């Protein structure tokens, strides 16, 4: 019994220590901040404010924030929204990393960066009703409540003339996967 307890404690410590590795690292910046924006500690964020691992970004009415992460992923947060950076690991040399972010409520538009370019499976956006995997693309998530989220693929299209990788989203509610490959199409995830 004691052995089990020790193992459990060791696991907790291991998880905590791994988290600590990133907790003080700056992972991005508010490139544009308009209106009232704050973090989980109720500190005001403005244009130029640094974003750290684990931060929540909360916008009030008539407010918007554009966040540029270190891997050049761009997150545009609409009014009355809340976004949490759950996980961010990035090696600028190899351009390998992982991003996990949660849209708790409101509207967030995402333009993927280097991490997704290197390995598309390493970008995951969570909502209260499901999660989204994205491949080289621009998309938006609108979480209206804990029971409804809408995901829209914005681009680029299959035959885009810029030679860009066509957008591809895989949205799942935990049981069923829906792929969106056509820009301007959406899926709604209910719970």
């Amino acid at each position, binding site marked *: 019994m004691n052995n089990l307890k020790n193992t459990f404690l060791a696991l907790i410590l291991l998880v905590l220590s791994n988290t600590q590795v990133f907790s003080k690292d700056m992972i*991005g*910046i508010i*490139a*544009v*901040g*308009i*209106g009232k924006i704050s973090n989980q500690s109720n500190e005001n964020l*403005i*244009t*130029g*404010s*640094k974003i750290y691992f684990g931060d929540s970004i909360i916008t009030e009415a*008539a*407010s*918007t924030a554009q966040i*540029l*992460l*270190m891997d*050049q992923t761009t997150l*545009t*947060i*609409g*009014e*009355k*929204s809340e976004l949490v950076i759950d996980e961010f690991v990035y090696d600028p040399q190899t351009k390998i990393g992982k991003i996990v972010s949660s849209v708790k409520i*409101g*509207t967030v*538009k995402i333009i993927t960066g280097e991490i997704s370019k290197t390995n598309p499976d390493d970008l995951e956006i969570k909502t209260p009703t*499901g999660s989204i995997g994205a491949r080289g693309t621009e998309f*938006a998530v*609108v979480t209206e409540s804990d029971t409804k989220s*809408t995901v*829209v*693929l914005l681009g680029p*299209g*299959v*035959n*885009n*003339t*810029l*030679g860009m990788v*066509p957008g591809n989203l895989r*949205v799942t*509610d*935990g*049981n*069923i996967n*829906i792929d*969106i*490959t*056509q*820009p*301007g*199409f*959406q*899926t*709604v*995830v*209910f*719970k």
Partner: protein
Amino acid sequence: MKKNKFIISLLVFFLGFNLNLQAEITVATPSVILTQLATSTSFSSDVPLDQASIDTINETTATVVNQEEMKIEVEADAVKLGEKIDQAEKAVLAGEEVDNEKLLMVLNSAKDDLTSRLDLEPTLGTYIYDSGPMVLTQNTSSNYNQSTDNTNMFDQTEGAQQARIVVYIDFKRQVQWGDVTSTVKFSATSRAASGDYNSTSFTNTKIGGSSRIDAHSLSLNRQLNTTYKNDGTELTVEESYSEVGAVPPIKHAINSLVLANGDHAPYSDLDVDGNCCFKKLDRVDMQTYIGHDTDNSSGPSLDLVIDPSNPDKANAGVNVGALIVVNNEAANTGTLTASFEAATGDNLLGNSGTDAQKLVGANTYAATIIRFDATKTVEAKIFEGDSSR
């Protein structure tokens, strides 16, 4: 008692499982929330940035965005697209500061970058004229096949000669382009049977470079012509031994090496508008490359590998033509014509003598041309996006 407990646990488990299954996800449909997205993220600030914020942004974005790296990426993308890009353009795309005059030049140059492009894709609203597969049959007009000296080089079996033309007109970007896929099959009873041809049939897709359109050019016909050598490969300008190359210069209403009156298509030092374009030497080249003369006893003969020092040898290739005529100003319909042409005449005809003698010789050669063609009038389809994926 234990049994009841087990059943209750099982029920609770299944209830929980079913509740989870009640989550629902809809199939992908056209979005109805784009306006909501735009509204939610579109606000303007009336608070000016202070210097500290500006410094922080500059410092951080300089770390995040490596301008040198981005310039390399911009250049690599340009190469991928077949575009030339100068240093000023790279600087603009990499976000470097440039003076406004240079920026204006870059923006202006971008307006013209859709000419001669081979990689254009339709955008929403592009008109697409697609002939679908067409079977070409022999044109029996008296202007063609007047020579009785040689066997028809084309396989006359129904369905042997096929082509498909697709033309795109993008009114928003004021550009049009197209391509033609052709399958040419030589007759088994002609020289193909004796193995003289390097290839008895070949299929090619010729992608036409894009060209600008305007209100005046749309109603005119547009043509795409290619000469294929007897082995099925496209004749290049470099392989020609005249100044311009033996790429057929056909630019008249019926898109044939033979005019409607039976004369050969005009080749001269000056074209009909007085502009220099396709030289007489190009006609000589054309005759060599599409010549299938089989008179081996005297005069010219087939030589499947053309030697510039022996212009009397014919290559036995084929001229493949595509023509589109947009039928009305609304551009709702277009008439597409595909044609294959080759000749049985002596390819030296019209190569020497006075100008008058050359004209007679060229017309004599033109009369030996055999033409297969097919014409279809199609309704333009308006591109609404790729729904195939």
